[in-house]
Each structure stands twice: as C-alpha cells, then as structure tokens.
C-alpha cells in the first residue's frame, strides 16, 4: 500500500530484493563465500594428500645441493651447486635467449612489415607469404622442425660445414670465433663512452641552435663520424688489439671459440622467425594507422621527405606500434619456455622440470616459476602504462 508519505524519501520502494545495492551485496557475498569455500577445500585436500604421501613443504630445499647437470650455463655450475643457483641459471638462460630473440626479431619484423607495405609486387608478396605461413604454424612445431629436422640432420663433428669467418656448424651447434680483447682495450670502451656523451651534447646544442636561429646542422652524419672516428682513434693510439680465438677441430670435438649449443640456436632461431611475423603485422598496422592526410599536411608545410618521416609519420606510427610491440616482446619471453621441449635449460626446464622432479616440491617450484613470469608481465605493463600516459594525445 502506498500512502501519501510526506517524509523525506517518497520514492516507492520496490521489494527489498530488487534494490540494486542490496542485490549487489548479496551477489558478492555469495561469490566470496563460494570462492573461499573452494580455496579451503583445495587447501584441505592438498594438506591431506601431502600428509598421505609423507611429503614436506617449504622453501628450505633451495639451500640443498642439486646434484644434476645443466648442459648450458652462464654461471659456473657443478653438481654440488644449490637449487637457488639452478634457479638463477635457468632465469639467466631464459633472459639470454629472450634478449637475443627480441634483438633479431625486431630487425627482421620491421624489415618484413615495411616490405609488406612496399609498392613492389614481388617484395610485398614475399613478405605476405612469410607472414601467413609462419603465423599459422604452432611455434612448438617450428622448434621441433629446426631442432630435430634441421640441426640434428647437420653433419657430425668431423664433417662440419664451414661458414665464413672460421665458423662451423654441425650436430653440436654453431662454433664461432671468440673475441679476446687485451688489457689496452679498456681505453676503447672509455673512448666509446666519451663519444656517446659527445653525441648527446651535440644533439642538444643543435636543437637549441635550431630553435633559436632556425639554422640546421647535419646531426646524424656528424654523430656517426664522431662515434666511429673517436673510437678508432683511441683504438689506434692506445695500441689495443683484439685476438680471435678460433674454434679448432680436435679428435672428437671442437675446442676454443664460442660454442652455441644446438638447443640455444634452434630456440633463438625459432623464436626470432615466429615473433618476427607478428611484429611485422604490428608494424604494418601502425604505419597504416597514420592517415594519408598527415603526409599531405606535412608536404604542404614544405617539410622535406626526410623530415616528414622523422617528425610527422614515425612518431605517430610509433605511438600505435609500441604497445603491441612490447606485448610481442613479452610473448617471446613467455614462449621461450617452449625451450623445455627441446632441452634448452631455461627456467621452466630447470626449475619446473628437473628441480621439481628431484625434490617433489611441486607447489613451491611452480609458484616460483609463475612468480618470475608474473614479475616480467607486471614490469612490462607498468612501463607501458607510463609510456601510454606520456604519448597520449592531448585533446582540447
């Protein structure tokens, strides 16, 4: 019954259950209760299972000796090393292959992305075929192909293929000469650092001058000249030299040089090829996102070709390209975990695989592994949020 209520709130209230606020609270309480119950149920089950299997939990295993071999490690590794060292080895191997993969995938991806936009029919068709073939085949299959079908089919050590610059390729990977700088070489690094500082100063000065007087200065050419000139001058004056330790075939294997194991080569190569196809699509989308009107406007301002690209097109394209590009980098890092399938000792292989099997600490090992990837992801998205806020269009 509605009565003529002259009180504060005359709105006719529907039934108590139809009030959106109260409903919201009820829904949330139900969800929270179900979730809590589910978690408690899982914890109870896990505890019972662990007790039944006489397993202990905890992270104390990290300070025990691991006692297994790792085929490829940037840190000194022996069977007497601890599990936390195994973790570090795995993490570093993941980072190594990710950095190498990102470097080459970026170069290849940008090249192919630009090639796809080319007006040249053959160039753009080749780029399209590359992208459509590579994108639609699972990465794991590609890794198997490179590892089992290509690298394992390479000749044995005795009949290695010779590559240029005293490099060899065979079943055991790629052997390249290893540069060994002598003591004087430190000066060259110092010289390079000074040259970089000089270039930064030069750019700053040229920009100031351009703003004040409108006079241009050939910054790029001068910068390259400074970098090369100063570095080689220091190299010459200090008498530094670089020796190359060439890999030499001995009775059973190569000695010396830098030996890249086939697992690493296959993984880095596969990740590069695969991710480059996605980067190429990102680059193409970014360039196409800059409307043609921008090019025309820049031309009508009288900008030269070079300046038009550098000042108008590229900055706008980059704003579109960089966020998905970063997520491709993150994907590449996550995909490097597939190295576990071809025996590259990266984080998942070393920690969620070998260490887990040896210690039986399933929950701890997987939690640590996931935490590492979670950190990568959160770091990336933090950087991206900062970048997006910086390049956001300021509209009136």
């Amino acid at each position, binding site marked *: 019954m509605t009565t003529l209520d002259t009180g504060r709130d005359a709105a006719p209230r529907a039934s108590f259950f139809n009030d959106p606020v109260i409903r919201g609270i009820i829904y949330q309480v139900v*969800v929270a209760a179900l979730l809590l119950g589910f978690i408690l149920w899982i914890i109870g*089950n*896990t505890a019972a*299972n662990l007790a039944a299997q006489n397993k202990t939990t905890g992270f104390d295993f990290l300070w025990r000796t691991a006692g297994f071999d790792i085929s490829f490690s940037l840190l000194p590794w022996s069977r007497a090393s601890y599990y936390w060292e195994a973790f570090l080895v795995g993490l570093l191997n993941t980072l190594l292959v990710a950095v190498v993969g990102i470097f080459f995938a970026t170069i290849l991806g940008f090249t192919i992305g630009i090639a796809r936009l080319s007006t040249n029919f053959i160039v753009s068709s080749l780029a399209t075929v590359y992208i459509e073939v590579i994108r639609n*085949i699972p990465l794991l299959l590609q890794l198997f192909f490179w590892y089992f079908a290509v690298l394992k089919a390479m000749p044995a050590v005795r009949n290695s293929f010779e590559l240029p610059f005293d490099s060899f390729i065979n079943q055991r990977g790629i052997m390249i000469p290893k540069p060994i700088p002598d003591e004087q070489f430190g000066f060259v690094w110092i010289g390079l650092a000074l040259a970089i500082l000089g270039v930064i100063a030069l750019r700053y000065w040229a920009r100031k001058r351009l703003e004040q007087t409108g006079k241009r200065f050939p910054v790029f050419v001068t910068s390259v000249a400074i970098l090369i000139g100063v570095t080689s001058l220091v190299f010459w004056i200090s008498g530094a030299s670089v020796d190359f330790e060439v890999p030499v075939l001995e009775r059973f294997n190569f000695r010396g040089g830098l030996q890249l194991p086939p697992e690493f080569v296959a993984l880095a190569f596969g990740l590069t090829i695969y991710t480059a196809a996605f980067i190429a699509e990102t680059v193409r989308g970014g360039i196409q996102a800059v409307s043609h009107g921008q090019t025309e406007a820049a031309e009508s301002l009288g900008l030269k070709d070079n300046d038009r690209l550098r000042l108008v097109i590229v900055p706008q394209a980059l704003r579109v390209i960089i966020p998905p590009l970063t997520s491709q980098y993150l994907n590449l890092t996550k995909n490097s975990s597939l190295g576990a399938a071809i025996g590259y000792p990266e984080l998942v292989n070393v920690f969620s695989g070998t260490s887990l099997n040896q210690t039986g600490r399933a929950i701890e090992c997987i939690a640590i592994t996931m935490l590492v990837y979670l950190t990568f992801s959160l770091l990336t998205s933090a950087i991206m949020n900062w970048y997006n806020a910086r390049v956001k269009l300021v509209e009136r």
Partner: protein
Amino acid sequence: MTDIGFVRSDFVEPRPAPSPTSGPMVWMKKNLFATPLDSVLTVLGLAFLAWIIPPLWGFFFGNAVGPGGTVEECRMENAGACWAYIAAEMEFFIYGFYPATEFWRPNIVFGLGALLLIPLLIPKVPFKRTNAVLILLVYPVLSYILLAGGMFGLRPVPTEMWGGLLVTLILSVVGITLSFPLGIILALGRQSQLPIIKTVCVMFIELIRAVPLITILFMASVMLPLFMPQGMTVDKFLRALVGVTLFTSAYVAEVVRGGLQAIPRGQYEAAAALGLGYWKRMWFIILPQALKHVIPGIVNNFIALFKDTSLVYIVGMRDLLEAVKTKNDAAIEWQSANTATTGYIFAAMVFWVFCFGMSRYSIYMENRLNTGYKR
C-alpha cells in the same frame, strides 16, 4: 585568297597515342620497376625465387617418394620428401592408438561435426537456431558416447588411447566452445561495479595472462591431482582441456573488454533508461555491438588456442604433433634422411590449413557484419 582571320590550310599532325593506362606492361612498370630501387628489389626478389623454388619443387614433388613408395626409395641419394611414410602412418596420425576396429566411431564424429558446422558457417542456410542447439548440446553428448564408449554395447576406449588429429580437433573445438562464454563472463565481471567480483576477475585474468601456457599445463599435470580429494583422479584429457580453456578464456576476456569499452556510454544509459535488467541490457544491447567489434581479436585467440593444443604433450596427451614426433623418433622401418622433415612438414600443413581457414573466415565475417560504421 583572303587575309582575314586564319584558315588552316594543312592537317594537324596526329599526336602520338597516349601511353596506355592498363595492360601488363603498365602493371609491371607500376608495380615492379617504378623507381631504380624498385627495379633492383624486383631483380633481387626474382633471383631469390629462382634460387629457392627449384629445390623446393624437387623436395615436395620432383624427387619426392609418393604414397605407396618404399622406404628404399626414400633412402636413395637425392630423394625428396617421403610421402610414402605419411601415407603408411596416416592412421596413427589421425587416430593415435584408437583401436582400428572402432575407427568408424571417430569417423562418424568427424562427419557429423562437418555436417553440422558447415551449414552453421554459411550465412544463407536457414535453421541457424536449431543448428546451433544441435551442435552445442546434442553433438557433444553424442560424440562423447561414441568416442569413449562403455554405453549401448560400445567397447570402452579410454582417453589415453585417443590421439593424433582426433585429440587436436576435440581439444580445440571444446576449448573454443567453452572459453568463449567463460571469457565473456570474465570480461563482464571485470567491468562490473561490484568490487569483489571485479577484483576476482581482474586477478584471474592478469595471473593467467602473465604466465606461459606451459606452466599452467605443468600445474594441471602435477598440482591438480594434489588439489583433488584423495582417491579421485582427474583424466589426463580433462586436465589438458581445463588448462587450455582457462588459458584462452583470459585472453578472450581481454579482447571482449576492448569491445565493451568501445561502446559509447549512451548505449549503456539508453538500455538502462528502457528499464532493462542487467542481463537483458548486456544480451540485447551491449554484447551484440561489442562482439561485432572484436571478431578478429577473438578469432586470433581461437587460432592461438588451436596452435597451443600442440603443447598438451606436457600432460601426456598424444596430439597430432606429438603423434608425428613419436613416429619420427620410433618408426625404425621408415628411418631415412628426410623422414623427420617430411613428418613435421605434414603436421605443419595440417595446422596451417585449419588456422589459415579460420583467419580467412574471420575476415569474411568481419566484412559481412561491418554494417553500421560504413559511411
């Protein structure tokens, strides 16, 4: 003779014909030799093609050993792809260890699936609703009964014996059908005004998206048994399915969220002003518009799911890739220089056909639904 005005006394010289604006020569000038750099690139590209096509042709066709060939031919010097190996092991690649006498059961499932799916994908065919109900509700039950057996006098076939393309297709079809609604619910949850629901959804999505699928499958394989009550075992197939579905649903959720955010606020307000409840608002007004926007993204996720099914070897399933790898490593009677290569190329072609088909269909759908925004 008059000298007033000007009268032409001779014919105007015919002007040269205008340069043609169409035809093969013009096309080549425009697309292959527009600038000197272009000409160089064209020559380089043609040289690359001339360098790569003959060996590829030789490998795939010229020197290849066709189906029905013998292993001796595959082992010969200069032999190309060993298609005979693929033909001989085809049954294993399609069915895995499924018993040969029962092949008719997966065959019916394949056939029925195609029969139901194709009319659903062609826009002109009527009875879409009936078709959808059949394929979403009746078909899965029927397929499960047929494949697993143990009912109606069918011989039981445990999931450990399933394999090959059969597993790849089941995993991806079920994964796609389950992860799509789950992703939509997660996306709606993430947009929700209710703080607890929102937090739960955000945490789930961000956690899943942050880690590689391989760790989730590891988790499904070593941790899921710990989470279940004692004595209860989870089928390997189910573990793989849960892992792949949860993983994809988080990605679908992010794509759908993009679509939801692209809908102007006025649409939400107008729907509310009509007095519709939350679910009706979403179902009739918001989702149809939002999903239309994000079809390419969702299909990309499905393609990724299809490719990701190759990772389920972690939980011990023998999908197409793993079946090929098993045979490559183990089929001693087919050992030759090109056996493994041929096996992987075959698997790659199968994956490629499905993924490329999906991406083309999504482009077609996108154009068809692109109604409101064309001017």
